[in-house]
């Protein structure tokens, strides 16, 4: 995607802090703080229609304008709807089961994202963005993809390692 260039500098910060070579499943999908491990999904804001899209795109999918800029989405949100994925879907090599949820971010943007859970989460459950390991690519890089965590649960060690705390 041509939008990758503009946001690579932000997106790559997550890579620089892990010992084993790792990369996001898609360049510019998310950013992470090397200080406190905060993970932000990266969207794009349209300066014409003021709406936000995720993932970030060069052209605004709502209005077609090319005046968009990459922005960090809020890390926190609440579950609106949630279902459970029990079997690995095609091409997925991460852990199962996991939740797939519609999450309302604090900015009011709705997103669809995986959530770390073994059961269907109730509407209103507070979640925060993290990343999970979802296998390796052909060159042996660890692949990282966004995954929300329920706020009450402590972050797992493996994830801590990945996001660099």
């Amino acid at each position: 995607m041509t939008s990758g260039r503009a946001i690579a500098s932000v997106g790559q910060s997550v890579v620089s802090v892990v010992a084993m070579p790792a990369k996001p499943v898609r360049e510019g999908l998310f950013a992470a703080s090397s200080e406190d491990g905060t993970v932000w999904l990266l969207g794009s804001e349209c300066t014409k229609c003021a709406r936000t899209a995720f993932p970030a795109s060069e052209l605004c999918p709502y209005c077609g304008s090319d005046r968009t800029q990459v922005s960090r989405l809020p890390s926190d949100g609440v579950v609106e709807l949630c279902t459970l994925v029990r079997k690995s879907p095609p091409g997925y090599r991460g852990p199962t089961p996991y939740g797939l949820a519609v999450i309302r971010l604090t900015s009011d943007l709705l997103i669809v994202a995986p959530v770390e859970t073994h059961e269907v989460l109730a509407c209103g459950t507070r979640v925060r963005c993290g990343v999970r390991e979802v296998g390796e690519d052909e060159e042996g890089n660890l692949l990282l993809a966004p995954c929300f965590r329920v706020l009450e649960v402590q972050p797992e060690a493996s994830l801590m390692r990945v996001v660099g705390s």
Partner: protein
Amino acid sequence: MIDTPIYIAGVGIHRFGRFPAQTLTDLGVHAFRAALHDAELPLSAIQAIYCGSVYGGVAAGHKVLGALGATSVPVVNVEAGCASGAAALLLGTLALRAQAYDCVAVLGMEKMPKGMIRSSFFDLWQEQAGLAVTPAYFALRAQQLLREEGLDVRDLAKIVVKNRANGALNPYAMFQSRVTEEEVLASPEVCEPLRLWMLCSPNEGAACVILARKAVLGRRKVRVAAITLRSHRFGNVLGEHTPLCGTAREVPPSPSELAAREAYEIAGVGPPELDLVECQDTDAARELLACRELGLYGAGECAQALREGWFLPGGKIPVNLSGGLLSKGEPLGASALGQVVYLCWQLQGRAPGGGLERCRVALAHTVGRGANASVTILQGE
């Protein structure tokens, strides 16, 4: 739009199901020949062919024509997801309206792989991230509908019971057996709230519709009163284009709503005039959502509609009397034309398994990946 009437001259179908011994071309040839026979027309009467298929590969329609006897007419293969057959129908209709031809064949056919399809729709990174999981999106959409309409999972089971009972009377359906609410609820959970039997099966089949600018004599005339195809606007987080974000307020009209509005306007009819509807029951909740998008009930009115049996055979507006995709299965490219074939039979009083007493106006609806939604309105004259 140039408004010359476009008639259905003949229809043909290859039963939907799984047919390991038959090639895709075999299925297409069967439906095409059946339609020619129905129209009492020779192959030489067909001046162009539009062939809807999603996984048909290179020259799918050409191979069918080659097997039938190559006549050198234009053949165009068409892909528009679940609406592929309807897109082909739209193209055929427009070509006739442009008076480029007098008679064309619209074919839809598919031979689907079993189980969860690895669709080329998703990008590699979406697969890797665990986002390429089609039934989960269906499940989230179902949850939203249940919440908005105050329904529960038993209401979904009842849709399956209705459609399978209808399908039991349709010799062209994949499943021709009734099921009970308890059986549906006891079938394996796929993604909460959807059970396995609440989801339609991707399968195989073919359907063919021959369109002409003149009606066939000696049979009740059926006219394509409207055929519309629409894609999506951005903003619905659970839209059929499978986005990863959406707005919390100002959700745009869905492709199905857009296609329906346009079709009602073109045909000059509305939901009250409809005698029969075939709609996209990819899963049981999708049927109820489709009925709302088509204006068969108002928002918040679903529980009442179900209680009063509006969509049952003999109800106010029977929905998926053919058995729907839940009975027939969904051969993507053939699905929309399968609906049209069935509605044509109903409008002409020759539906297998018993017809409606009165059927003058009938509507077919598909929606799926792309996003694509189609609405076809047929009118008996």
